[in-house]
């Protein structure tokens, strides 16, 4: 069924009785060409691109809970391509281009809204670092504009320009940055994959990975054994546990990142705004809620919930930056599990096991990477060689020291990225 405004009209006139399931709930088969472990944003997009780009449809996505139930459904929905290190630069640029055609591609309105992102800076040193970033973005073919203080004031008149602890010196404006409706991204990919024949198997937890003579043979699940020629692991928040099933230890420590949304308010914040001194970023959703977040809670955790000190810090930063939001009331807070790597950049690579691939370590960058990650991971699985946009995301870079992508410059302490 194709979605369109006309269809909505027609169904509205006939009692909305004709709408069909967005995806099937098939029983798992005993044998697939490819099994993707993880039905989150990245797993679903991987399956979608395996089918669409590579014609591989004998594919199952195994999800232990419900699809889209992980970080794709609990983030702050920011989409951007504003990295400055080689590897990240081309990858996120690639991902953003996929975003820009996503609605037509999926026939699903993911509400990708390029309302512009502004990273504020508060010192000459920060300005220079952002200039380096902006120049890289431009040389990659993305867009960046360096705003001075007055330029920022024009775009964001509600910031505290009068009595701030850390004055705004300017901002790096990324007009193509923005937001999207997070759940819809998962659903759109799920529907697209399903329509092309991929089996989405919910409530199916992988309990083991079958390996013989260094080659993957399939997986054990709570719904029985499934044979597969190739297996892709793409399970943010559980990467360590699933990789351990294949005897691997990953360079990952899992952390909580909290996020917040306020009650609905009339439009007051147009852009995505990011503070440079206090880990705070905010945008306003189409429903009117202010969606915002800050830094990790800092301790390793799988709890999907955080504690008060970071909540308070984030809100103090909010008050420092935009004192007009004081009377916005936080409606809900939640936590995602961030798989933090030693350099803050992800991994899309083969493993030491033939036919076993891994896509992990997205730190906070996972949501905007959903199209790019799936696209590149599908390429890796289908072709057995990396996609050019993701060829730097190697697992062995930490051991060798080649191609580290430490955008924060904080070194191998996982929680500092």
């Amino acid at each position, binding site marked *: 069924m194709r979605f369109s405004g006309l269809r909505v009209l027609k169904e509205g006139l006939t009692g909305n009785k004709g*709408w069909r399931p967005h995806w*099937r709930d098939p029983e798992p088969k005993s044998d697939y060409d490819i099994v993707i472990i993880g039905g989150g944003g990245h797993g679903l997009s991987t399956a979608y691109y395996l089918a669409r780009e590579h014609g591989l449809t004998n594919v199952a996505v195994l999800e232990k809970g419900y699809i889209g139930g992980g970080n794709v459904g609990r983030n702050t929905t920011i989409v951007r391509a504003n990295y400055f290190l080689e590897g990240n630069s081309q990858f996120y640029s690639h991902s953003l281009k996929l975003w820009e055609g996503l609605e*037509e591609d999926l026939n699903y309105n993911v509400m990708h809204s390029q*309302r512009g992102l502004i990273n504020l800076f508060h010192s000459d040193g920060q300005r220079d670092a952002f200039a380096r970033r902006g120049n890289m973005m431009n040389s990659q073919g993305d867009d960046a504009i360096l705003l001075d203080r007055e330029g920022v004031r024009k775009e964001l008149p509600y910031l505290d320009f009068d009595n701030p*602890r850390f004055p705004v010196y300017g901002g790096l404006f990324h007009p193509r940055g923005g937001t999207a409706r997070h759940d819809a991204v998962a659903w759109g990919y799920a529907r697209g994959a399903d329509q092309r024949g991929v089996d989405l198997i919910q409530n199916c937890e992988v309990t083991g990975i079958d390996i013989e003579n260094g080659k993957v043979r399939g997986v054990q699940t709570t719904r029985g054994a499934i044979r597969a020629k190739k297996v892709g692991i793409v399970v943010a928040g559980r990467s360590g546990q699933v990789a351990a099933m294949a005897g691997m230890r990953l360079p990952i420590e899992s952390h909580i990142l909290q996020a917040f949304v306020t009650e609905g308010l009339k439009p007051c914040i147009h852009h995505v705004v990011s503070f440079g001194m206090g880990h705070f970023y905010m945008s306003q959703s*189409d429903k009117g809620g202010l969606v915002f977040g800050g830094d990790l809670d800092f301790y390793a955790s799988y709890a999907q919930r955080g504690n008060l000190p970071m909540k308070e810090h984030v809100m103090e*930063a909010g008050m420092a930056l935009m004192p007009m939001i004081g009377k916005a009331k936080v409606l809900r807070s939640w936590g995602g599990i961030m798989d933090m790597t030693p350099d803050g950049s992800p991994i899309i690579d083969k493993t030491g096991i033939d036919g076993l691939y891994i896509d992990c370590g997205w730190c906070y960058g996972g949501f905007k990477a959903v199209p790019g990650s799936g696209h590149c991971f599908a390429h890796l699985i289908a072709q057995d060689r990396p996609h050019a946009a993701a060829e730097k995301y190697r697992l062995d870079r930490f051991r*060798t020291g080649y191609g580290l992508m430490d955008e924060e*410059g904080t070194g*191998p302490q996982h929680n500092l990225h």
Partner: protein
Amino acid sequence: MRIPGKGLIDETQVSFRFDGHAYEGRAGDTLASALLANDVRLMARSFKYHRPRGPLTAGSEEPNALVTVGEGARRDPNVRATVQEVYDGLVARSQNAFPSTSFDVMAVNDLLSPFLSAGFYYKTFMWPRAFWEKLYEPVIRRAAGLGALSGEPDPDQYEKAFAFCDLLVIGAGPTGLMAALTAARGGADVILCDEDNRMGGRLLAENEEIGGMPGHVWAEEVLDELRDMENVRLMTRTTVTGAYDQGTYGALERVRHHRPRGPLPKSCFWRIVAKRAVLAAGALERPVAFRNNDRPGVMTAGATRAYLNRWGVAAGKSVVVFGNTDDTHRTARDLIAAGVHVPVVVDNRHDAEPQGDYRVIAGGHVVNSSGRRGVEAVEVAHANGRRESFACESLAMSGGWNPSVHLACHMNGRPVWNDAIQAFVPKPGMIPGMTAAGAANGTFSTHGCLEDGQQAALDALSDLGRKAEADTLPPAGDAPYRIRPLWAVPGRGRAWLDFQNDVTVKDVKLAAQENFRSVEHMKRYTTQGMATDQGKNSNVAALAVLADATGRAIEETGTTTFRPPYTPVPIAAMGAGGGGIGFAPQRFTTSDAAARQSGAPMIEAGLWYRPSYFPKPGETTWRQSCDREVRMVRDAVGICDVSTLGKIDIQGPDAGAFLDFVYTNMFSTLKVGRTRYGLMLREDGHVMDDGTTARLGAHHYLMTTTTAAAGNVMKHLDFVSQALRPDLDVRFTSVTEQWAQFAVAGPKSRELLQGLLDAFTPEDWPFMACGDISVMGVKGRLFRISFSGEHAYEIAVPSRYGDSLYRELIARAETLGGGAYGMEALNVMRIEKGFITHAEIHGRTTAFDIGMERMVSDKKDCIGKTMSERPGLMDPMREQLVGLKPVGAVKQLTAGAHLYNAGEEPVRENDQGYITSNCYSPTLDTVLALGFLKNGRARHGEKIRMVDSLRGLDALCEVCDPVFLDPKGEKMRG
């Protein structure tokens, strides 16, 4: 309509305004009760269809009656009229309606509802692509949202505070009061919190006796006793909003929402640490979904009784009652006793009997309501299907009660289904240390609540190691709770579940039809439970509808996750203190006042403030001042406060060995009275920090760190000492704040010191010497070190003398043709000398990259050494530190610009490096830059292209050594 003689609030009149009209209320009224007393029941419009709405409840869970309170910068959107207390001068207005709540043009959405079904927006607005941001989204955004922020900085004061107790009791109804009383009598420190402005909970809303007296009187007696106890703290208007780890709770106190402006903070966010907690938060009543159940005048039966019994307000002259428990009859009795007409009581239980003088339709259902901007009549279906209409001004409905399990679920625990009460109850142990009791635990009789509260307190006392005895409980009602499930009345039309978000039974069914069968999918697809009440009124009924639509039991369908906060918390409250300069501590050097007095603009350096430059008369740009200051230092002498650099005093028999381990180079071999530059790596082989370390004695060193890294280095030293090398006997003390330290730099620095120090023989102070001195009678320290490349010293005195010494230094420098210099000049001079700062050691550079790989001693192990030898960190094609000078027509070099081979396109694939620092050098009369270039050390002399697309610059420059000035260091050594 106010009923004379009814209610618990006093007769004091207060005047307030709503939507421009003046009204009279009574002290103790909420805005909702006061408006209902004035027969105003249309207070708001719904989110999506802009349906007219009145209050559904009498509490913080209110989904409909959200208003904006106050004016100007103080306007406060989305305030529950059911919570807001009226006071003289209160100004409130409705929101989300244009031009007004009684005539809202957006109500056209209601007519379009067939096309606005659940998730419709995922299926449309996709074409043409550009229209999403330009047309569809702006329209949607303007229609959405509830109230509006003022757009101005919030001028109110807020505060945060900590509190500690043995037992936190959450909720001051019969359960909480009994728990608090028992625990307090047992000697425990008790905090009793209630979100209401008056404690007593449902005892204030019901005709209920305890110990032979009205419940509210009993409550007042208990409160009187508690007030007199030193170990009890009563916190009204305080909502416990979240349960966190190890007995930490967040709570929001509304300190000044019920008063006009004044010195009080608006609200206070509490962090309460409790050894034990009792969740006595009561229960919330469930509305029933039937066609047009959202009309103003339709409210929960519990709210109807609360308005009547507590505030003396009847929801209408005639009220139909509809429900599935004995509360239905309690409602009818209370109404009739107050003289309100009850045309009929509709009880879905087939065996229902009247409990008073009123008509009962047993086994019946209300199937529809009608009326213009409010209910005027309801249609009832008898058990046999016969329909009958009843005119009424209000409908009191009850689908049963949901225990307020929310806080118990904040640590991811899931409540369990209790079939007997058709509701979820907490599982014990979901929050360590917390016990749910009373209605929050599914105990609905008053007696049961008292018993539960007492037992929970006794258990807590016993956990706390206190002896405790159970007092005899006062007699109270103990009727059984009999319920017949009543979620959604079958029938055509729209029946509301989530009132605010306009989610109807049809929407949930459509979600199931489209395979959004998981409760999380249904929620996210329909927005059910995502409104400001977070589903408090609707989630369980929606679950029941979903369970029915998918052929599952409710318990099998499961709940969505309960997340903090329990009720919304203003950002200003949880972020109290963060606004303005309060966001982070301010650190001031001892010369700060003098620098400001001389007109220096101060800039932030971490938490510190440092002078940027010192403008002289006639100088109109920072560059003029900076250039002069550089020349002044190079020609005469300059003074600069360098106290912000971290200073760590290191003592102990193993101090030298310890420094050898944390620095790449050797310090155990440094002579006493000498200083050495040191490089510190992270364990992954990248540079952490640099600085000089002086040896003051055999076992005594003084380490200097950069300003930015001071805290981190201290932490690192503690880590190495405690966690890696506890075998080494060494102690650290930060002395950053003890010493005020000033650079005295320039060819005349020696001359300046000669007049200042009590005994100073320059020959005794060769380059890198250090030691004690006496400055005008004050003991200080002198270091012959230089960050400017000049003959220079740093002089340190105890901070109390810092201001005085600084002024003295400036005065003396001025007589020598010198003076103060700021950060700009300091930066220029260090670039001229190729000295690095965190612009260069930005966390991705190695000793190899900055040309200091020879400083990594091969005679010993040190932090970072092994990993710095990874092949990828020694690769010649890495970006290496170089100097750059413009050689083309464009004479500008800018930090952040990227480097390309001359003649190559400035695209990422051709990237060769970037610029980290740049300046105009008045000494060399040229622009200079430091940067990193692939294989840069081998490329000195090469011409490369610099492109700064952000600033529109494209320059040709020459690669050179990063030391531009005095490469042999003759000036600073001489």
